[in-house]
């Protein structure tokens, strides 16, 4: 039973890494950046390229591609969303635009890397897991747990102790007020898109350690992230983390008790329940 909880926490941690960025963007721009999922897995493909075509070590590959994609994230903001926002486009049109981008990215990935899966690993050989007090953890899970915790602490530090982190929070809480006290909106948005995409590529690269990479995964993950963010309360960064953890844990208990065929049903039943009874999330 505790084993299932552990599996759930690790999956939840991965959802959380990606959800944080999604929530951050939502809190400052007020729209669903759907292309975010495909962007994350595009980044994972680039991690793959660094790992196998260039021959770098996995962690270096992951960090390099996350940095590159941080800038790609900024580019997306500047090229697509910012012009739309300046025209005062409704958020529905922005969602449609970002859905289009998701499909385009997915097809570009298929064209470049093929539709089949690519698998990626830290070492060339597979390694069996470790057992502590009757609890079993695989090598990949251990890495994922460690990276998630480190990135989480760094992120918290940045948001609370550094100036640009606090500006991001200010914009998220009250955009107009933030601008009247002299915060530069454009530069804050650059930070937001950089950090969000950076985190998502870290998350997607870690996921690909476990399940490989396929173009369609970008679409799958964005659905899960929306569920996590709704559970946690849309636009609340802390809520997104809590929602992601809850989703991971509930999903895994669902698999354990009802069978894995119910995994997605459980996730979306949760979404429906929250939308109907607690639309503002767990922390109202």
């Amino acid at each position, binding site marked *: 039973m505790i084993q299932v909880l552990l599996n759930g926490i690790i999956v939840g941690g991965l959802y959380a890494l990606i959800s944080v960025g999604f929530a951050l963007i939502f809190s400052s721009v007020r729209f669903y950046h759907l292309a975010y999922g495909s962007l994350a897995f595009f980044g994972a493909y680039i991690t793959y390229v660094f790992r196998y075509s260039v021959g770098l070590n996995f962690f270096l590959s992951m960090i390099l591609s996350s940095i590159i994609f941080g800038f790609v994230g900024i580019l997306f903001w500047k090229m697509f969303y910012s012009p739309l926002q300046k025209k005062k486009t409704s958020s529905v049109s922005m969602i449609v635009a970002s859905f289009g981008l998701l499909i385009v990215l997915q097809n570009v990935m298929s064209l470049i890397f093929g539709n089949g899966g690519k698998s990626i690993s830290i070492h060339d050989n*597979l390694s069996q897991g470790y057992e502590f007090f009757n609890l079993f953890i695989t090598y990949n899970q251990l890495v994922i747990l460690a990276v998630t915790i480190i990135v989480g602490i760094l992120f918290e530090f940045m948001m609370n102790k550094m100036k640009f982190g606090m500006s991001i929070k200010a914009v998220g809480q009250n955009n107009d007020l933030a601008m009247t006290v002299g915060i530069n909106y454009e530069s804050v948005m650059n930070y937001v898109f950089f950090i969000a995409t950076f985190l998502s590529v870290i998350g997607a690269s870690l996921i690909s350690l476990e399940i490989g990479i396929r173009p369609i995964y970008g679409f799958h993950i964005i659905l899960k992230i929306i569920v996590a963010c709704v559970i946690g309360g849309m636009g609340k960064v802390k809520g997104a983390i809590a929602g992601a953890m809850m989703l991971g844990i509930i999903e895994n208990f669902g698999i354990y008790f009802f069978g*894995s065929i119910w995994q997605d049903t459980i996730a979306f039943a949760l979404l429906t329940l929250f939308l109907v009874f607690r639309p503002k999330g767990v922390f109202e």
Partner: protein
Amino acid sequence: MKKKFLGMLVLMIVMSFVLFSCLQAQPQNTDEQATSNTQEILNIGFIGPLTGNLASLGVDMRNAVLLFLDENPVFAGRKVELVAEDDMCDPSKAVTAANKLISSDKVQVILLHSCSGSYLAVAPIANANKVVIFSSVSTSPEITLAGGDFGFRNAPSDELASTVLIDYISTKYKKIAILSENTDFAQAYRQKIIDKSKVKGLEVVFDEVFNPDTTDFKTSLTKMKESEPEVFLNFANGGVTGGLITKQKYELAINVPEIGTDIMTSKEYLDTAKEASNGEIIAMTSADESKVSVQDFLNKFKVKFGQESTAKAYAVLAYDSIVIMKNAIENVGYDASEIKEWLYTMPEYDGLAGKTKFDSNGDGTILPNLMVLKDGKFEIMK
């Protein structure tokens, strides 16, 4: 400026899509010769996946047939022409191809070396038009009855594969665990195993079905481990999915012997599961490379087509299929109704793949072998 750039970008994306779809829509190359049906030429039809995901399979089977026709170009005094059509394993394309072969090329026999879906789609048309269809690769149990009077195959039904598997399991184990994907193929296989294990007195201690997009099996596998099975059946329907299960099972150090399906011969499976795949057991037809006649065939194949056959088991079956057709045509002439009758009663044919006869449903007698994976290669289990 920015608007112009965006406009250009959109235009480029649209153009590339149009270009891409044009490329795809180009007519496929066929080996068809535009000879009209004169008395001397005898057209035999072929449908198989010559492009797409399973192209290596289809091309190898076509080449095996061509290899035989190269050495035996004349059946019953008439020159044989193979009219090959590509269906990419898509039933709707197979139907189009079959209609063309029947109405325009006037074939009496179609070597339908394609997926079970294509076979099932073409069978009613072939029966209505009285044309013999013969497959060396469609293994679905449904074909046994759905093939109709004119349907034959020398590829063994999955029914036989499940019998071979359960016979093997019952000699060594008592408790089995099954993890299966929610697809026609995997569920049919699972049902047969469950039915037969009841007869053999085996206990199914774990039986879980998952949806095709599932990728994380750790919790399911943990549950499987808790049920303490002696053998684990991995019935995934895709190479990557099957590989993920094998890999995650290995990472969780669940050291229960594993049995799989034909899926495990795919490159995607081996790439995903890596060394965790060692010892995987499957039941499928295989080319017995210890036979001189098989070695001889494979050598000729390599010389003629410049590369080794990648789907040896099916190439061998396809070779047998055209030899059987030659025997039929030489005995009764090129008439589908006569050929059909002859096939049902023909003497046992000892070919490359083994000894073939047909039962009243048109199913052949070749049995699948138990194979075991060693360092990325399947070997026949002794």
